[in-house]
């Protein structure tokens, strides 16, 4: 019943909703279909396993945001960054600064790896991913609001889908599995509110 499921949104038939213009831009390279999700999952699992073996710690994402915010605040209000705990905890080594951090470098790697993959698959293009019933501005407002709420939730839970769900989940951490259950339960419970944004 829904035209935009499965492979549709980002494959050859360019999404008609991306920035309002879609189909058949002449000369645009054809985007290749996505990888089998189970294979992609096994790949990510092996990366995580390698992180455990090499470093004795896993992957993460929200921690890198914490470091970036700590770096920003410390450049404007160094005293506050030194004294308020959630900044101070991410100030890192005195000499090397907050950005010489495992998760910051890992996330820089994520952005490069993602871009490289998209570029080689012909998927690198400007656009906005959304359902057909919401305006570009509306979708961007939801994106900012969703990001803000996730930032607060990830801080409270001490991690996000990478640091808690993947890393802690694979180590069978109790708190990580509580996080997974709560996150998915809340997302399903709230999904009717955002149906217009996506379908």
């Amino acid at each position: 019943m829904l035209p935009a499921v499965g492979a549709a949104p980002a494959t050859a038939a360019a999404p008609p909703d991306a920035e309002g213009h879609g189909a058949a831009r002449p000369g645009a390279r054809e985007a290749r279909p996505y990888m089998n999700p189970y294979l992609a999952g096994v790949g990510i699992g092996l990366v995580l396993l390698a992180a455990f073996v090499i470093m004795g710690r896993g992957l993460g994402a929200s921690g890198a945001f914490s470091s970036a915010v700590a770096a920003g605040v410390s450049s404007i209000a160094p005293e506050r960054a030194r004294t308020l705990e959630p900044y101070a905890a991410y100030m890192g080594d005195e000499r090397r600064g907050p950005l010489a951090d495992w998760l910051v470098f890992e996330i820089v790697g994520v952005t490069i790896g993602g871009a490289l993959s998209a570029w080689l698959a012909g998927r690198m293009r400007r656009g906005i991913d959304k359902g057909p019933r919401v305006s570009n501005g509306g979708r961007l407002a939801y994106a900012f609001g969703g990001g803000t709420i996730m930032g607060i939730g990830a801080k409270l839970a001490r991690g996000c889908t990478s640091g808690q769900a993947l890393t802690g989940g694979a180590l069978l951490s109790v708190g990580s599995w509580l996080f997974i259950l709560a996150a998915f339960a809340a997302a399903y419970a709230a999904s009717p509110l955002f149906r217009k944004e996506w379908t």
Partner: protein
Amino acid sequence: MNAPLYEIGAFGDTGALLFALGLGLVFGWFLERGGLGNATKLAGQFYLTDLTVFKVMFSAIVTTLLGVYWLSKLGWLELPLVFLPPTYVLPQLLGGAVFGLGFVMGGLCPGTSCVAASTGKTDGLMVVAGMLFGVFAFNEAFPLLEGVYRATPMGSVTIPGVLGVPFGVVVFAVVAIALGAFRAAGWLEARA
């Protein structure tokens, strides 16, 4: 062989950052390849039209779990040296629920928002901006939230530890549940 290599002093802090960059690169590669740089695809998880998020996440967890189990059983990986995130029941339930609300609203999680942003998606960039603002807001409100943040600490505990059953039994159960759920996912998608 003995691991974790960093913990036994095989290389220093600069080496660690280079490994972080390299591992992140492969992580980002597989996220994008799997379609997780695409918010519409991620959101499909919550309308049961596209279960890619579930498939990628749980096949990753199962892969790592089996790897961790066998490497430590063979004595190649010292599991006690691997950092286990500490459990705080209340903040992790509450934070998880808040996170889930933001997830379905934003359509991307923190890691995948970086992939979406770096592959040209403006919505990905806005989720990144929102994350930075949310972290800032939490930090500024920390004196108010500190009580909840520190509530119900349990230390670094695992499911087999709390249940008092062997690690291998829980690994087997998780793998069995995952395989069943993968079948169910295929069935749900066929119906959608």
